[in-house]
């Protein structure tokens, strides 16, 4: 099953507020993406 475009194009933020497409995570190697319930 392929990842949906909606998920691949989703934007996440780093600690500086910088935006990243989620698909960047698996561009060059497999990614284990853990979606956590919340921080802390």
């Amino acid at each position, binding site marked *: 099953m392929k990842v949906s475009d909606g998920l691949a194009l989703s934007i996440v933020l780093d600690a500086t507020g910088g935006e990243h497409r989620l*698909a960047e995570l698996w561009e060059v190697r*497999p990614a284990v993406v*853990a979606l956590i319930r919340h921080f802390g």
Partner: protein
Amino acid sequence: MRHALPEIRAAGAELAVVGNGTVAHLRWFLEDQAPDFPTYTDPTLVVYREAGMRRDARAYLDLRAVKSVLRAKRAGFTQPGVKGDPWQQGGVLVILPGGEVAYRHVSEYLGDHPPPAEVLAALRGPGGEAHP
């Protein structure tokens, strides 16, 4: 998942964590936990929605969730405050270059984490070798 990090990297993959609090919450997490893997946040919850993760209160009412909380308390874990959406549940995806989803775990209740062996097996593929 962080305990499986050496095996994840040995399989040629990387662990990435996405939370759902504010950027300030993410900064707190980085200072408190000092994770050695990339960590991001999605305050909009779009990633969770697109990944099909649950967002409801039933996850807290499940008997297995109660057991999980008691087990965590006995182990000394406390939760000083929720830094993110209190109803959002999580999960784990293994995604290969090209976008193939090799594994998907949707948490059904509080403390429902995937067995690391399942995640690692998905990374290694059917032949037990890491994906090229």
